């Protein structure tokens, strides 16, 4: 477990459930009850059908690596460089941002299968559980990464 203080998330009123589920180790996204479209970041209306009603749907936790960048400039005192940030295309469609645990930057490959893992971090606002990603393989578990 890392104790590196990271920047706290921006938490608008629609973001609260996401972080509450994350704290419980669940990856859930807001989904339109009328037409089934995901909304991410969460918001007040469905961009497809404008309905307000929604539920918080659990994702499979499966995804693939869409793109990444390696930070060489230090923007945050709490996150030492270099570090990679990835855009992950989830199996359900929405694109999520995270760091890749347990894979060296040089070994990242576009399209590589990933699975969601939760990491407990310290932020400037206190402890937070955030969704990260790790290479999907038969022996890959969160415990192994740590």
């Amino acid at each position, binding site marked *: 477990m890392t104790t590196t203080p*990271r*920047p*706290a*998330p*921006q938490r608008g009123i629609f973001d609260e459930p996401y972080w509450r589920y994350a704290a419980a180790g669940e990856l859930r996204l807001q989904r339109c009850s009328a037409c089934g479209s995901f909304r*991410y*970041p969460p918001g007040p209306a469905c*961009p497809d059908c404008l309905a307000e009603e929604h539920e918080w749907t659990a994702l499979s936790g499966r995804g693939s690596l*869409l*793109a*990444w*960048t*390696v*930070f*060489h*400039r230090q*923007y*945050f005192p709490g*996150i030492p460089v*270099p*570090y990679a*940030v990835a*855009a992950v295309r989830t199996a359900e469609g*929405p*694109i*999520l*941002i*995270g*760091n890749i645990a347990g894979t060296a930057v040089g070994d990242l490959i*576009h399209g590589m299968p990933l699975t969601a893992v939760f990491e407990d*971090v310290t*932020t*400037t606002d206190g402890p*937070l559980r*955030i969704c990260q990603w790790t290479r999907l393989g038969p022996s890959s578990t969160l415990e192994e990464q740590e």
Partner: protein
Amino acid sequence: MVDLARLSALRDTVAIVGVGETDYPEDYGRARRGERYQDAYGYAATAFRRALTDSGLERRDIDGLVAGPALAGERLGEVLGMDVRWADQADAVQAVVKAALAVHAGVAECVALVYGNDQRTGGTAYGGPGAMGGERHLAYTYYAPWGLTSQGALYALLANRYMEVTGLTERELGGVAVAQRAFARLNPNAVMRKPLDVEDYLAGRYICEPLRLFDYCLVNDGGVALIVTTAERARRLRRPAVLLSGIGRSDHNREATSLRPRLMDFYRPAQRNAAEQVYAMAGMGPSEVDVLQVYDSFSIHVPLALEGFGFCAEGSAGKLLSSGDLGPGGRLPVNTSGGHLSGSYMQGWGHLAECVRQLRGEAGERQVPGARTTQYISDVAGKVTSLIYRRARA
């Protein structure tokens, strides 16, 4: 739907008759030495004074005012002593669009577009938890817990994906910085004038990989102003009139924060829409553009614009970037003042001024011979706008 008949009624009816810029190398030198000799309004006032003199108009002739993003309209009017009958606030490219619409509609006859920014001495942060622009672009700050902020990092993600899809190499991308530096060397008002070849580029440090130091804009203090009026009035003024021939705009906001339009589409649908409109209104195509200006916070904007507006086929920009065609003497000169990368980061306002200077034939050593048509393409996070200008017939 675009009403081409109405759009065409605007074509060539509005002119740019004055341009003014501050002395970017001096602004940069002073900022580097930690001297704060101007604030944003000071730079704005210098640029405005110069644009007014350039136009031959008097301050009392100006009845419209558009303030750039770092300025408050009220304070700008106060500083410049101007009580106008029409005013607005806009970024560079929208300032021209708004002024043109206002002049065309008759709510103002002579509009000053004024930009000033003390972003360097003022310590504007483009990355970090309070990254500039986060209030308008949620993605600039939303992912801070994972260490992702800054416009540069988002364009680095795009570049990573774009290179995978198109095969663009880092060496080819370096062609953008190299070509623009070659132009900057011919422009006494560009900040970075030391020679830069592709080996120097590749030796530059990464900021957010795959983007390097020379892929990033040069944050600087400074100011730019333009004066816009009717084509009729422009004919009575002393400078060669530059006419606005085309306007194209298209936004790609769906799923903007989740980065889908950026990473999956490279903003192409918005670019295509804007291209279709700007060329239809101007009655021409990309092959007739003599000088191209591209909003270049980051070098990767250039291949996106070249492909999105049909200067080359999708996915084929790499060869064009490394061919030398974009630089001095090339077949498609791009960012002839040095742009944001080597000239000065004036948030697109300097590109507007350069369009005018090239068409007037007053760009000195960097002048593109016989330039009759210039195009500006601005795509900031999927908000795509393009303008086409022509030199008025004498």
